[in-house]
């Protein structure tokens, strides 16, 4: 015979439990359906609990005077299979209406597990973790501002957040590790150079290079008084070349080419803390001979960190003579507001085949680093070729 439970009903809003106050039937008693088979008391009222069906009380599982929670089984009723079927009590799912387990939330999913990408927005695939991937949180940005950090400063941190995001905890942990090291303040010039290089590096930069013969230039220099340095020859050659065609000196801003107003060219001067770039104005219109004095003056003022305002900024290119460090080849970075930087490598004497025999010749590498958005390799190469050519007629510079 099927056994069906007699349950503690929910006897009112928010009632959690009730006390058994009367058990008028004993185990073995026959009871009719829908009659009260026991009485319970709540904080609100005394109420009868009814049997779901006629049958025989099989057993009570409760004691008088004790409290039981809503939904608990108070006893069992033996009913006929017929009655049970007719009243739907034979279904194993006839469970009390108690809160069931909630829907299975997606917590078992590991955050590192790859998820299927589902198209959601206008047919475009949307990353499953669109809200997470690799962003800098507002707090990260604020903390970085406070510290004077740039994204480049986070390069040393392996992020623990979603998609390798650097979280604020990661940053603070990194700072704690850094605190174990000796730290000294960077000079304001170092910080300024760093900032300029970071900004410049945001562009696609490329470098081309070629050989230039120096013998004619060196001979010309020997005869000159005062003597221009090799960098000044290079500067003047670049200025003349740009005077002939200023297109490579333009800047690309948005969708426009911004052309130079005049051919002003800077040159790199190393100082204790970094590199300064004094500027020679109208370098295409100033003969080399008259440039020398101004050049030396600016080098000296630069080293004293006393460059006049009219010798700072606003130039379209820089010349750097990395050959003075013994370097033959380098890929210098143009200043952020410039498209070009011309580099001059160390000269050396090489054997040159004149068709009959090897002759000593002096040559060096010149490089041109440029913003590839403005200039292509061909244009850069032609500019270098023109400069190399001008080195062969220094008397015209």
């Amino acid at each position, binding site marked *: 015979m099927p056994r069906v439970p007699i349950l503690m009903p929910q006897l009112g809003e928010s*009632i959690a439990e009730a006390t058994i106050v009367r058990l008028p039937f004993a185990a073995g008693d026959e009871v009719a359906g829908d009659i009260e088979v026991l009485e319970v008391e709540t904080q609100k009222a005394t109420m009868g609990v009814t049997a779901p069906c006629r049958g025989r009380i099989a057993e009570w599982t409760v004691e008088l005077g004790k409290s039981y929670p809503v939904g608990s089984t108070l006893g069992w009723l033996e009913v006929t299979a017929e009655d049970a079927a007719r009243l739907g009590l034979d279904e194993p799912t006839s469970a009390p209406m108690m809160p*069931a387990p909630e829907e299975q939330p*997606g917590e078992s999913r590991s955050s590192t597990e790859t998820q299927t990408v589902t198209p959601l927005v206008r047919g475009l695939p949307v990353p499953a973790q669109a809200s*997470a991937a690799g962003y800098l949180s*507002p707090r990260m940005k604020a903390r970085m501002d406070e510290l004077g950090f740039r994204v480049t400063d986070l390069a040393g941190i392996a992020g623990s957040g*979603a998609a390798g995001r650097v979280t604020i905890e990661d940053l603070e942990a990194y700072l704690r590790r850094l605190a174990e090291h000796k730290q000294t303040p960077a000079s304001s010039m170092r910080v300024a150079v760093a900032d300029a290089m970071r900004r410049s590096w945001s562009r696609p930069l490329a470098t081309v290079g070629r050989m230039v013969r120096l013998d004619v230039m060196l001979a010309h220099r020997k005869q000159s008084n005062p003597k221009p340095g090799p960098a000044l020859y290079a500067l003047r050659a670049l200025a003349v070349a740009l005077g002939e065609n200023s297109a490579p000196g333009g800047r690309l801003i948005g969708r426009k080419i911004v052309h130079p107003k005049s051919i002003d060219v800077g040159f790199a001067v190393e100082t204790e803390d970094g590199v300064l770039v004094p500027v020679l104005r109208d370098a295409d219109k100033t003969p080399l001979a008259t440039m020398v004095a101004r050049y030396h003056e600016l080098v000296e003022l630069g080293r004293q960190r006393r460059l006049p305002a009219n010798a700072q900024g606003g130039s379209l290119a820089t010349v750097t003579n990395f050959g003075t460090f013994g370097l033959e080849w380098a890929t210098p970075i143009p200043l952020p507001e410039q498209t070009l930087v011309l580099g001059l490598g160390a000269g050396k004497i090489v054997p040159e085949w004149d068709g009959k025999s090897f002759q000593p010749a002096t040559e060096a590498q010149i490089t041109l680093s440029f913003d590839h958005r403005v200039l292509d390799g061909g244009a850069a190469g032609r500019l270098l070729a023109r400069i190399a050519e001008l080195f062969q007629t220094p008397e015209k510079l």
Partner: protein
Amino acid sequence: MITYLEAIREAQHKALADDPRVYLYGQDIGNFGGAFKATKGLAKDFPGRVLDAPLSEDAIIGSAIGAAIDGMRPIVEMQFADFSTCGLNQIINHAATLYWRTNIPCPIVVRLPSGGTAGAGPFHSQSMEALYAHYPGLIVMTPATVEDAYSMLLEAVAIDDPVIFCEHKYLYYHLKAPALPTEALPTGKARVARQGRDMTIVAYSAMVHEALACADELASEGWQIEVIDLRSVKPLDTDTVLASVARTGRLLVVGEAFPWGGVTAEVIARVAQEGFSLLDAPPVRINAKDTPVPYHPNLWGTHRPTARTIAAEARKLLHL
């Protein structure tokens, strides 16, 4: 042990005993003691001051406003928070505007038996706090503890402004405390219900207990979750929430009410506006589903946030 419901009854008893201006008005609250027994025995202890009202929510609240204007401190019981919509006009257009318009305060307390219990269905389960908090001039209290149920109700009676007192039906019998409090935080101050450092969960009313259970669960996984109990949703203690987010960088807000707008959205909007730079991850809110509250316990248990669903969202947020 004192239940949350007994605390509410005791607070009303004390208010009636201490202040002759207090009287109770509502349906079935007299000799019957109220649908939830929140006024059990009070009609006997305070004859003529605990009055059965007709089924007229507009008139119940409207008359309380009149009585308050005439110097009384009525405590009105809506049988269910849901039914307060029948008195909505008096609450939002009359009580809430009175002080602003006339400079005469309106010290009424409207008790709203709020929130869901299994089987109560669409019309006996609602959480109305967001609706009332929307209106200028109302104070909206959402006590989560036996102690707050007692002390905040007493404070509600003492406050000169209309107070919507959202008491949670599920907590009535399920929440117990050893004794009534002797001191309390003032309304308008949130409580740090649990200290943590990894994430802030802001909750109120019954959801505080779900949040605390979630925090327990996550503690076993090594996370330290801070739980803030707002206590009153209006005024909203933004400072305490911001201070907590400053400690944790992560914010999860939980409410039992419907999802559109509401308290959870308000908390997040304030943190986003005033504490954007404190956030190390997008703030997250969890609410009931955007349907009426369902009848069947299976559906009901899924409709509202629970410790498990909160924990699931919390884990996602912690791993961002």
